[in-house]
């Protein structure tokens, strides 16, 4: 079973990134100007991959001995990861210089993390999912601690690594139990016998442990505890990637696992579990975010509650549910990236200017940034006509169609609570007297990245119908 040229061609998005990592390594080693070349090289790499992924989205196929999938939802995820990573790179260019952690390896690790995400999104084998997950996680552990002179960054890396590796233990154990029953790790093969396995307690327990491991990665309560600390301590640009691409990648793997399950009569097997963690995540995230004064930490809790909303779509277990999850993830990725981009611009070199009060009077001092941040806050709060509203809208519709109306109501309730802390940022920016002096260094690449995110958030809010239709075409 020697791979054909066509298979390599279909794998091109992944191969481009992989080749890019090696080329970046060479640039970093031999060029004295690597600091100027590498970021733009990464952006070119990400954008071309994003473009190519969208171009080949129609070529759906299982390739490499049913190890990987090409086309379809995998490519949509590719687009989200790579385009998101391009924005992160734009944000990073001036940010990593500002906080004094400029090493060329930063971009190489960014590319490696994206490679891991992509492998997670198109895996068709548990081994592949595991390798992709570890590739991504290992890069994130490093990047979280990348600002190695800062104790907060060290601590974040430490906690992330410790708990992440702990969760990995459960994932491996879960895979082991599943393997013992299914005798294979290929997901299509497992899918064939799913109806029989779903009565086998060892298989189901293995699957549960596996899902719990991923619940950790997507930051669902009660496996969320690492999130606030790690998001707060990591360099802001990395938090941006972790909270968007990282979360989307974990969800993409969950969908790969769940999609065959939804096609069987046992589609509601894990519904109780999903419903419980979704409810807990939404409520806990929204409520605790209110008490936060540090913006990054507040957004960490916001990220927990968004994980809850997205889980509603998974719990719905229908095609609309899956499509809504993908839509939500794309919308969430860009609104969160924009938000963190702005935070990274306002943050100063000693990890200052991160608390809510530092934003007072921003509406006067930096009207552009303030207006953009207001858009993202409205979008995150789910106020129409921005992307966030339709993310929630589709997810709730999916829940109602799957007879989970009460879950949708909990979701609405939680979004009402969350409006409070999102709008508080807007109120502080526009209606609070500014006592402090805020020195914001302009950064045109970052501003460009933020504006692209804002544009996407608005476009997804104005034309959500065509996007969800596109996604639905590939969800089966």
């Amino acid at each position, binding site marked *: *079973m020697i*791979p054909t040229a066509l298979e390599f061609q279909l794998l091109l998005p992944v191969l481009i990134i*992989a080749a890019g*990592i090696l080329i970046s*390594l060479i640039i970093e080693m031999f060029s004295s100007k690597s600091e100027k070349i590498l970021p733009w090289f990464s952006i070119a790499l990400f954008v071309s991959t994003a473009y190519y992924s969208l171009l080949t989205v129609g070529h759906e196929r299982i390739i*490499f*001995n049913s*190890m*990987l999938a090409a086309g379809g939802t995998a490519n949509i995820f590719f687009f989200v990861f790579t385009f998101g990573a391009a924005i992160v790179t734009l944000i990073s260019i001036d940010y990593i210089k500002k906080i*004094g952690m400029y*090493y060329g*390896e930063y971009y*190489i*690790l960014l590319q*490696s993390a994206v*490679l*891991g995400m992509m*492998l997670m999104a198109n895996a068709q*084998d548990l*081994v*592949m999912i595991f*390798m*992709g997950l*570890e*590739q991504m996680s*290992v*890069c994130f*552990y*490093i990047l979280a*601690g*990348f600002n*190695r002179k800062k104790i907060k960054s060290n601590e974040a*890396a430490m906690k992330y690594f410790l708990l992440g590796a702990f969760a990995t233990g459960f994932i491996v154990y879960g895979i082991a*139990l599943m393997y*013992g*029953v299914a005798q294979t790790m290929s997901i299509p093969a497992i899918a064939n016998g799913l109806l029989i396995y779903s009565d*086998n*307690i*060892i298989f189901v*327990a293995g699957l549960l442990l596996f899902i719990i491991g991923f619940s950790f990665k997507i930051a669902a309560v009660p496996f969320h505890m690492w999130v606030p600390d790690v998001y707060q301590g990591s360099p802001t640009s990395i938090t941006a990637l972790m909270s968007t691409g990282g979360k989307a990648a974990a969800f993409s793997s969950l969908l790969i696992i769940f999609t065959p399950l939804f096609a069987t009569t046992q589609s509601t097997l894990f519904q109780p579990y999903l419903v419980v963690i979704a409810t807990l995540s939404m409520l806990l995230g929204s409520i605790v975010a209110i008490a936060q004064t540090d913006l990054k930490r507040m957004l960490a809790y916001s990220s927990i509650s968004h994980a809850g909303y997205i889980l509603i779509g998974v719990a719905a277990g229908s095609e609309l549910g899956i499509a809504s999850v993908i839509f939500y993830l794309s919308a969430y990725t860009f609104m969160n990236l924009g938000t963190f981009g702005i935070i990274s611009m306002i943050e100063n070199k000693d990890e200052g200017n991160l608390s809510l009060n530092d934003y007072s009077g921003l509406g006067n001092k930096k009207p552009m940034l303030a207006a953009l941040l207001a858009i993202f806050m409205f979008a995150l709060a789910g106020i129409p006509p921005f992307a966030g509203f339709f993310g929630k809208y589709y997810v709730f519709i999916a829940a109602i169609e799957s007879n989970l109306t009460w879950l949708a109501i909990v979701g609405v309730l939680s979004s009402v609570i969350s409006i409070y802390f999102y709008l508080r940022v807007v109120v502080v920016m526009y209606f609070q007297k500014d006592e402090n002096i805020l020195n914001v260094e302009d950064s045109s690449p970052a501003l460009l990245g933020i504006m692209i995110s804002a544009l996407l958030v608005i476009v997804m809010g104005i034309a959500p119908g065509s996007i969800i239709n596109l996604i639905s075409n590939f969800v089966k």
Partner: protein
Amino acid sequence: MSLNFILFLIFAFIAATSAVLMITRKSAIIAALFLILNFAALSGLYLTLNAQFIAVVQVIVYAGAIMVLFLFVIMLLRPSDEQSIFDDNPKLKWLATFVGVLVFAQILAIIFIGRPSDGLTPDLQRSIEVGTIEAIGRELYTTYLIPFQSAAFLLLAATIGALILAKKKLED
């Protein structure tokens, strides 16, 4: 009682005891040594399962490479011994132990309710065959080519990362 079973009992006993001793030693060095013992016993267990390749790799990679790294870091940092393991914040630690015991009971329950041995018809010849380097290598370079390649990228990222994080001085 076959020889295999006796070997299993011996190795299982060593593995279990050394695991418990590992997490209860105050000194990190001694704990690491017990972990090496545990890995060695595991390697023996793999042999009883006819997994020759994995048994060898276990010794080379785990006991040989990873644990040496651990020992090296312990020596480098010389962390002071923990005063006691259960005295500080005992409530939390007993809770942790209790939770652990509970999960153990649950997993045992799952294993014995599921009874995987019922569905298995072990084939000694086959199990010897699959444990050889040849069998594993063939699969690894055909079906599992892509994960194998990705492992390379994983190690590359880890190498770069370890360098960046642990290098003593960085040019500013």
